[in-house]
């Protein structure tokens, strides 16, 4: 489904960093991919690249056979809206905006019918329908992350990309969030997650380890 070939990404602010240093990676539907590695090794960069939020300097990227590295910014945005859902470490909900409206946001950028029903279903799925009228600052971190996951799910994307989604949560809440991802995966959604959470090893079907912008190990986990 996702084919990244020889991707290179270099940052030149200050010292030169090869955040992606020739990464080749194929991800197929239904996988639960965990990405691990030391800080600064390029995990987030890889995730954003996969989700069309960032682009590579060199290499090829195709999604479902389409050369998306040749897409215009508009095409990338539309495909991102349809295909991916993002979950971040710092929740990234819009402040002074209710949970409901936060989850509604992706649907505003796609012509969707029955948006309200979809929002309700997404919020119920992650168990925070009762918080639909709350602003982000009126919720716990765990609840905020659930709303963020609902926002990622509301467009029914094929792939959820999560960047340390439990990084700002205590271990108990973190485990609950991991359980949620497990359920989402069980329903057939592909999950790619960057994390230090040890629970990952329990759920992932594949573990990729990175170092200095390179993939140093890529193991399928048998279940």
């Amino acid at each position, binding site marked *: 489904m996702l084919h990244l070939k020889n991707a290179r990404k270099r940052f030149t602010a200050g010292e030169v960093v090869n955040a992606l240093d020739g990464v080749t990676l194929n991800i197929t539907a239904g996988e639960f991919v965990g990405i691990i590695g030391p800080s600064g090794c390029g995990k987030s960069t890889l995730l954003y690249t996969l989700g069309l939020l*960032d682009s590579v300097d060199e290499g090829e990227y195709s999604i479902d056979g389409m050369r998306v590295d040749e897409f215009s910014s508009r095409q990338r945005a539309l495909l991102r809206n349809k295909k991916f859902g993002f979950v971040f470490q710092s929740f990234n909900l819009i402040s002074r905006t209710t949970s409901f409206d936060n989850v509604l946001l992706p649907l505003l950028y796609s012509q969707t019918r029955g948006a309200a029903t979809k929002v309700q279903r997404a919020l119920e799925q992650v168990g925070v329908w009762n918080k639909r009228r709350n602003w982000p600052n009126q919720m716990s971190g765990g609840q905020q992350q659930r709303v963020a996951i609902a926002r990622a799910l509301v467009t029914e994307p094929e792939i959820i990309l999560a960047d340390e989604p439990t990084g700002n949560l205590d271990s108990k809440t973190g485990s609950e969030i991991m359980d949620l991802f497990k359920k989402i995966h069980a329903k057939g959604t592909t999950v790619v997650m960057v994390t230090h959470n040890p629970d990952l090893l329990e759920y992932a079907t594949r573990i990729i380890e990175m170092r200095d912008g390179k993939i140093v190990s890529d193991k399928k986990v048998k279940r």
Partner: protein
Amino acid sequence: MSIFENYKTALKSLWNNRLRSFLTLLGIVIGVYAVVTLLAAAQGVQNQIGGFVEDFGPRTILVMPGESDSSGTPNFAAQAAPSTLLVDDIDYLKAHTTLIESVIDYAVFIGGLATHGDKKLTGMPVGITPGAEELFSIKIVTGRNFEQADLDKKNRFIVLSEAAADKLAVKVGETMNIGVDKFEVIGLFKIDQSLSISSAQGEMFLIPAPVANEINKSPQVNRIVVHSKTVEDVDRAITEVREALTTKHGTTDFTVMKPSEILKTVDQIINVLKYMVIGITSISLLVGGIGIMNIMLVTVAERTREIGIRKAVGATEGAILTQFLIESVLLTLIGSLIGIGLAAITSYLAAKFSPLEPAITGTTIMMAVGMGVVAGVIFGLLPAVRAARKNPVTALKYE
């Protein structure tokens, strides 16, 4: 994102920062207020002038005492001096011209305080022929006007404005005095145009012209009104009148002019003033616009993370651009509407408590709204482009 959602988002964001939005609006409000109020005042004056131009037909020619200066403007200092025009000038014109109509009207100014019982009123008593009232934009509302017979018989009749009659507590059929002379009131009029030549000089009293000559013990007249037979001939008729009188007087100690033309000139001057008003107030709109740009830049910077989030969930650059443009346009649009509202209130009050009759036209409103929207687009564009171009990854990391 639908336009409706865009408006909702923009309104919400403006409301969340309502004090800041309001302060930003002020610049536009003041600019639009100034332009609309001044244009309304100018339009009001033009409307009144338009009334005069219609009162004076295109065939009307006015002869005034005193030489005109080189630009053709009558010499107003000469108005105070004894008039150089005489009653027999009228007969001379009838005999020595071919292009003007045989009925020639004239006006004679006299002095004297108007009194009725113990009531007094300073004003402008004028002796006129029936056609000369054209000069004063009046309309008889009670009683009647003079007729030729009143002039022939030198009837001591007087016609005055309702306002003057009120102040003197005099009614049609009663007698009143101008100086030592007694007159019977036969009619009351109202002045058609509030800016008419007369109102600035106080109340007006009209008496038959020959009576005025009799009281003045002089054949002098102050205005002669002639009409060319055809509109096409009006300029040739002016020349004919000027040449005839110059021959008779031996010098050009008078002015011949077309009142409608003069008023048109004034109208044109006001038009030029209007453009100046638009120009000057555009500067204040420019200042207001820069204020908007400044605030929008701050807003965009503050909401960098939100922009990152929107992009992450699939907002295109176009959608972000539209969102911020709508916000700035909404800001200037609301500012324009408030400005127009305030200008409307001011114009209403001015019409009520001053001789001005400001008129806010549809064109003015459309122009003001247009200027607001254009300012919103122009000054909102740079911030909106900045928002749209933000790199989503760095935007998401923004603190």
